[in-house]
């Protein structure tokens, strides 16, 4: 099952996919109303707990950034102020030269996980969604890198559009990821190439921290990150999870 949360006409609604009479994709609200995708405001599709993100978790992307594969997952955490829904707008500061998207499989925990082995790990997953985990490389510093100024920016962690039940994704290790910028394919990868796959990540993380329902693991991005500019439409798609749309905006849009 796919579901999301949208704001419409003064309230927040649970919503499910619905094909409109003209064949385009819309949403059906829990109360039965049907609307086009652009008529509602898309919110993150679940209550987001701790946001755990992976760096350099695809061998090709690690090579792209000239890093050797690491012995231990490169993990960092993000705060709730970074979260943004489908069809949102993300700011690119005027003074930067390299801001890039990162299309990632997001794994949503559904059941408390503490010292879980990899063979039991997937039983703790509630579902999946797409994440677009933006970075601004101009701000990289080698202190707790990637530092928060690079990765913890307001509205730069896009989640959605749908929360997809784990039961609908029988093999999270065989999903293709694709990113387009203004319709041009720029990034393509497959979760089979994860260095640390989903069960191993849950085993590693739950070995020292208790994971709870709503915690989300952004599993890292494959090669193909390119600079994006104000006005660009960035679409991240993953097999079975839909397509997550985001638009880059300039400082003026944010009153700066």
């Amino acid at each position, binding site marked *: 099952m796919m579901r999301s949360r949208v704001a419409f006409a003064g309230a927040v609604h649970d919503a499910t996919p619905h094909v409109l009479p003209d064949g385009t994709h819309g949403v059906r609200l829990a109360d039965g109303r049907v609307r086009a995708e652009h008529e509602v405001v898309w919110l993150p599709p679940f209550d987001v*707990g*701790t946001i*755990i993100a992976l760096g350099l978790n695809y061998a090709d992307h690690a090579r792209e950034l000239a890093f050797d594969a690491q012995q*231990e997952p*490169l*993990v*960092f*955490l*993000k*705060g*709730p*102020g*970074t979260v943004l829904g489908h069809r949102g707008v993300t700011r690119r500061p005027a003074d930067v030269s390299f801001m890039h998207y990162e299309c990632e499989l997001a794994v949503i925990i559904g059941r408390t996980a503490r010292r879980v082995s990899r063979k039991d790990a997937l039983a703790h997953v509630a579902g999946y969604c797409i994440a677009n985990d933006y970075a601004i490389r101009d*701000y990289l*510093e*080698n*202190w*707790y*890198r*990637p*530092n*928060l*100024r690079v990765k*913890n*920016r*307001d509205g730069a962690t896009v989640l959605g559009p749908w929360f997809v039940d784990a039961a609908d994704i029988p093999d999270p290790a065989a999903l293709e990821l694709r990113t387009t910028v203004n319709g041009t394919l720029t990034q393509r990868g497959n979760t089979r190439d994860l260095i640390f796959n989903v069960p191993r990540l849950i085993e590693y993380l739950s070995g*020292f*921290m*208790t*994971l*709870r329902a709503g915690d989300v693991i952004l599993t890292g991005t494959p090669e193909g990150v390119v600079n994006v500019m104000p006005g660009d439409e960035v679409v991240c798609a993953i097999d079975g999870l839909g397509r997550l749309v985001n638009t880059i905006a300039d400082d003026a849009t944010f009153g700066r």
Partner: protein
Amino acid sequence: MAFGHNCSGLQLGFAPYRLTGTVYGTLLNHSAAWDAVEGAMHAAPYKGPPKAPVLYVKPRNTLALSGDAVTVPDDVPELEVGASLGIIIGEPACRLTHADAMSHVAGYLLVNDISQPHPDYYRPAIRYKARDGFCPIGSASSSDAIPNPDQLQLRVLIDGQPAGGGSLQQMRRSVCRLLVDVTEFMTLSRGDILTLGAVAPAPRARAGQTVRITCEGLTDLLTPFVRAAP
């Protein structure tokens, strides 16, 4: 809403604000912490001193209350006690200025920002800083009661004996300056906590010992260190 893994009593909601459970830690703000690393700052892997504040997240599984025991991992002899002032945000804080930053502070509390000692600060230290219970927080005092937070003195007692502490006058960024520099790149919400940074050198404690952090005007923060149950 209750937070924390082992503290059923941790309720974060009370007037006039509600703690969100989001805690950002600040690294190397105390001069003694900076000085201890300064000699290595220009060499690899750092290749230069930090410019922006170096922050990290203490996630919700780390939150605990005064009196809650913290488990020392079996393979670690001691943990670092990061005694810090926690700044409670009272108003949405984005691009604050030196003129308005302090009016966005609701209050203060003590934070025991616990870490497993780690060899360097190059990569995020999640495994060392985000273990369950590694962020005990004390009770809040209103900012009205703490007019000069940068003048405070923190003290750390281990089993009742003085073990460390320091003056917040020794911070490289004051409360005001830290708020300005952090909110330049990220917005803090009402009820978030930003630590001013641990006083250095951070004392270490082992299982069986009890850590007390004190500061005039703030409620003591007590943390017993224990071994994992077999």
